[in-house]
């Protein structure tokens, strides 16, 4: 049945796989480098890069980061914001997507266009800031979890998913005497666990990794999320004094330790998502898949 593959085909396949292999390595090298650097002796690190000799590895960087406590506070804040944001966003999205998925829902087009318009045009940074300020939400967690909670992509995604559920299911439920609300909560939602998981994870990750709203709206040190603390350590080059204590006298040593601390911070802060993501990979992909069917 199958024809033998031509030489050209074999050549293309081999070079394609080779290229993919190179790309996989290109993605892995920086990640592995960071991990090894975080346990390498700081003097070696500055002078010649990472050391592959495990007997010389040390966890000094991690000790310093954890001892300081500011990163842990960031973790705690980020966890609160991300869980709350994800919860609000998913509830609101599920609720609005259901009527919009119903055939014959009066006003569907008009309501949908109200949402879709915001995907392409917005009032801008300063008017939004002034609004949050006027609502007295500056320096509260509401400024982080409310403004971005409605995500129009997710509404479209969710609506498409609902549309894929057979209509007969609802008709049968209505005949059995249940109301729309009962049908929605008791029958539809249990069928939608995959899409709920996708939306919740996406929104969680989005909030976990964001820093901009926090930079705009939060002033108190005790409210800062993880990414803001990372920013001051990694981008603004200001490791917290607590992480560098006992090195204050020697500038060179201080610089070495501060490099080590940066690597340790990257690993500690990125590890949770990196470890979690393979388990949820199929959900993440499923979300994109549902969206692409519509596209």
């Amino acid at each position, binding site marked *: 049945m199958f024809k033998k593959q031509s030489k050209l085909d074999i050549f293309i396949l081999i070079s394609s796989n080779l290229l993919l292999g190179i790309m996989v390595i290109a*993605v892995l090298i920086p990640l592995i480098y960071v991990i090894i650097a975080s346990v390498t002796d700081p003097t070696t690190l500055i002078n010649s890069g990472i050391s592959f000799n495990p007997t010389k590895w040390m966890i000094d960087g991690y000790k310093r980061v954890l001892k300081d406590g500011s990163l842990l506070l960031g973790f705690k804040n980020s966890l609160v914001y991300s869980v709350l944001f994800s919860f609000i966003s998913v509830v609101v999205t599920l609720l609005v997507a*259901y009527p919009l998925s119903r055939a014959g829902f009066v006003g569907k087009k008009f309501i949908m266009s109200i949402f879709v318009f915001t995907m392409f045009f917005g009032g*801008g*940074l300063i008017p939004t800031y002034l*609004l949050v300020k006027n609502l007295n939400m500056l320096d509260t967690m509401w400024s982080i979890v409310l403004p971005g909670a409605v995500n129009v992509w997710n509404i479209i995604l969710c609506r498409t998913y609902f549309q894929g559920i057979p209509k007969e299911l609802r008709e049968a439920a209505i005949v059995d005497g249940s109301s729309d609300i009962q049908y929605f909560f008791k029958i539809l939602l249990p069928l939608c666990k995959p899409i709920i998981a996708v939306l919740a994870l996406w929104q969680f990750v989005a909030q976990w990794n*964001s820093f901009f709203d926090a930079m*705009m709206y939060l002033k108190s040190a005790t409210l800062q999320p993880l*990414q803001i603390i990372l920013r001051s350590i990694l981008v603004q080059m200001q490791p917290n004094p607590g992480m560098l204590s006992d090195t204050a006298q020697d500038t060179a040593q201080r610089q070495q330790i501060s490099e080590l601390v940066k690597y340790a911070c990257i690993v500690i802060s990125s590890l949770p998502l990196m470890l979690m993501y393979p388990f949820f990979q199929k959900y993440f992909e499923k979300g994109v898949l549902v969206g692409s069917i519509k596209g």
Partner: protein
Amino acid sequence: MSLIKCNNVKTVNNLKTVNNLRYMKDNYQLYLFILPALVLTIIFKYVPMYGALIAFKDFNGLKGIMGSPWIGLENFQRFLDTPDFWQLLMNTLKLSIYGLIFGFPIPIILALMIHRIKGAGLKKKVQLILYAPNFISVVVIVGMIFIFLSPIGPVNHLINLLGGGNISFMTEPRYFRSIYIISGIWQSAGWSSIVYLAALSNVGQDLIDAAVLDGANILQVIKHVDLPTIKPIMVITFILAAGNIMSIGFEKAFLMQTSMNIPSSEILPTYVYKIGMQLGDYGYSAAVGLFNSVINVILLLTVNEIVKRLNEGEGI
């Protein structure tokens, strides 16, 4: 005659309205479902659009939006007159257009290659690795860029080993765009390939078998089977990316800015932030932001129109 017709139309319209109202009354619960999202959208998306009126005003926080005096297009004029105007506009356009030129095709090529990996297990592992950087936050990515490219970082170690002198990547304006775009591809090319892979996996194997029986080689299968399959997704992705040209990747550009690379790293959104949040010039900043949004919409509509013409009337 025409009077009767007119009356008929009216009656039909009335009937429709009555029917619609009855539907809304019977299904009021469904409208309650809409409410939370609608209220949040109106407050946090539409009220700021109204607030953008301060672009046309000499805004004073004490007088409020309505109380501040109108000044017409003065803020816009001021922006057009700044010596930096052209540089800001060109920086913004260059950064996104180069990003689009290099960032758009790579996920497609990746998808075509991953699609041809033999063995489901290997394929999964490759995907797992290529998607991973997508989950790293923009702060950490930029942090990694800073330490990798610092004078004492690994990239300069390597350059020294190969006999070159230290390169100060983050303070030289000419490296900014390349670093921005390459790191962007490193982070998101894999993840962006998912939509294409999903579409490719829907191609019937019989179609490919038939093509191969007819003597088609891989390149011909790609041209006649694979590319037509993913074309609709390519079109939508491209139009949406073009519509994002003026706002794309703002956070990353903001984080990658150093006082030295400003000549190429200052783009419109970072400028808006600077004059608004750091200098407190709200009206002027809102005007620049509005200018940015309007160009964005114009670009989206233009690209959509061009694609429609080239693509037998299919856009979004």
